């Protein structure tokens, strides 16, 4: 009898404990409940915002690409225009020739190229195409300027600058600083900078014409090639006419490169 009572008591106690444990678990669950639906709903909402952001960004990107295309069209016209200028130049006196048409277009293009590089990165195919157009226009401007100076019996003050964006060209950044500083100091100086790795036939032709080696940076002044880093003093010694130009200049005609190791764009 005693044993039965003890057994019953034990069963009651065990049941009570189990019930208490169950209640505790239920209570805990009700307190620490998480709403999976809410987590998922918020996830969908956030993804929705991402999609909207992507759509808005794509819209602006397309606008930018359209701008680049329009710039490329403009460059084609400019190149044609420069060829016409050559022909005019053959038949005219130097006083009526305007040598700054291409230069001003180059400055605009340089700014657009800077913006495109910032937006799409220097490896973007659109940017590379734009850069090729820019380089072509530079070469055209260089040839036209040479022609004008020849026709008018003047000495050109221009520098061809070959650089590379690769990390192996440690002095290219420094050369960029030097040329930017020179251009600031002597606004009549024309600096044409070319990315030697761009893979443009016209640049390759210049490279072989002026015997530009693999040791960049390289500058070419009046047909003479100077390899390696050239300091400010060196360049001033190479082009003694700079000092004269500094005193007579009224307009900025120098041109620019835009990539990281080129020359900073002139606004």
């Amino acid at each position, binding site marked *: 009898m005693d044993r039965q009572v003890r057994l019953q008591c034990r069963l009651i106690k065990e049941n009570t404990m189990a019930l208490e444990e169950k209640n505790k678990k239920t209570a805990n669950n009700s*307190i620490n409940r998480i709403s999976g639906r809410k987590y998922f709903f918020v996830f969908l909402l956030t993804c929705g915002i991402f999609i909207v952001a992507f759509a808005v960004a794509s819209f602006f990107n397309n606008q930018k690409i359209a701008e680049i295309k329009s710039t490329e069209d403009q460059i084609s016209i400019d190149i044609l225009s420069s060829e016409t200028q050559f022909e005019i130049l053959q038949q005219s006196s130097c006083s009526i020739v305007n040598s700054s048409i291409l230069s001003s277009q180059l400055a605009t293009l340089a700014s657009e190229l800077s913006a495109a590089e910032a937006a799409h990165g220097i490896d973007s195919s659109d940017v590379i195409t734009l850069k090729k157009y820019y380089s072509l226009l530079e070469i055209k401007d260089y040839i036209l300027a040479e022609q004008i100076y020849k026709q008018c019996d003047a000495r050109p003050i221009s520098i061809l600058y070959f650089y590379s964006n690769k990390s192996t060209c440690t002095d290219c950044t420094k050369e960029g600083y030097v040329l930017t500083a020179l251009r600031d100091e002597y606004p009549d100086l024309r600096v044409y900078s070319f990315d030697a790795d761009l893979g443009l036939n016209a640049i390759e032709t210049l490279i072989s014409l002026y015997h530009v080696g693999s040791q960049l940076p390289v500058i070419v002044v009046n047909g003479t090639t100077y390899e390696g880093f050239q300091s400010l003093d060196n360049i001033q010694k190479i082009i003694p006419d700079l000092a004269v130009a500094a005193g007579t200049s009224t307009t900025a005609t120098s041109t620019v490169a835009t990539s990281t190791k080129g020359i900073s764009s002139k606004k």
Partner: protein
Amino acid sequence: MDFPTIMLDISLFCGLYFQIFLLVTFFDGEEKEKNAKSLTETTHATLPTVSIIVPCFNEARTVKKTVMSLLNLNYPKDKLSILVVDDGSTDNTHAVATAVVAHLNTANGFKNIKVVRQENGGKYTAVNYGIRQSTADIVGCLDADSIVDPQALIRMIPFFNDKKVMAVTPAMRVDTHLPRPATILQHIQRTEYNIGIFTKRVYAMIDAIHVTPGPFSIFRREVFDTIGLFKHAHNTEDMEIAFRIQSEGFRIANCHNAFVYTITPNTLRKLYRQRTRWTYGFIRNLIDYRRCLFNKKYGNMGMLTMPFAVIGIGFVFYFVGLFMYRGGVFIYNMYERISTVGTIGLTFSHLSFASISTSFTEYFHSFYFSLGMTSVLGVMLLATTIYIVFKSKKMAEGSAKLSRDIVYFLCFYSFVAPLWIGKSVYNVVLSKKTPWR
């Protein structure tokens, strides 16, 4: 897409997800609060006895105001007791507190107030001493640099009608009761505290409060018998107890209109030390309670607030590092330029603040502002942040007008907060302890 851009996009996704979660919870919870029956059906007879502990260490300047604010509480005086625990102050805190108590005993006839002194052992020992002495149903704590609104306690008590609620937190504000915010940093903190009121209200709705602040959090006395007293907890005992209460399956409520006014640090140095201690303590407590991370058993605390805190701290640390690295590269480039060509072309205008900031912005341009989708997301995150800032102000101060507190906060907070987050992570990684003062 480069690695920093991917990290930036992920951080923006996390930031947006978290803020949207808070807003959805807030609107949902606010609606429920409106529909719920009033919690204030508590009569004098059913009001519990309350004991408030005031731990002080060198608080001679403020202890009188703090005690007087407690006496002004709209609560039956026969159900309220105050215990000032001097934690071995080296100034005349004890003398000031004793004089205040003597005055209250004689002039106001308020007898339920005592001052005790103990050897300096840290704030948590002073509070524990008070808890052991107390026999009241509810035990509260009020830091001696804070002042409590007269209606605070009576608004907080009804939350204990829910048997699972073991603590109730107040709404902390910086306001005109104390010296007006004077410095830019204090203006920033005013907005920061207002945002705290918003987030605590939302956290309480999802049972994920991570701190029961020293200024006037109140506890059901029995909780200390169940889960134990305060611990040292890396000088952030108020965070640890919150983690412990919730990890044991109990609730912490928040009374968003029970205001407590606190003094904020007025210099960067003081603020930096205070916030480094808080953040360091928070990270260490996160580590101590890592079992809760991504654990459904611990509800939203384990699945949302703790993981996002870890992610947030990680991102801040990463971007601070990246910003410093890029800033270093920028300075190096400037140095190289000057050492190569001197100051040619570097006129005074180049060195003006506007010019430098423009160059700096241009330098970071490609990283921060020209990413298309990233900048659009950044604008959206900023928009939700601004909404929360104004909503918080409305909740805390009753008006949502644009003020300089908000302007300063939006302009400068993201520049100062990384200072202590970076330092705290650094201290945690190198196991360097962060002192109280």
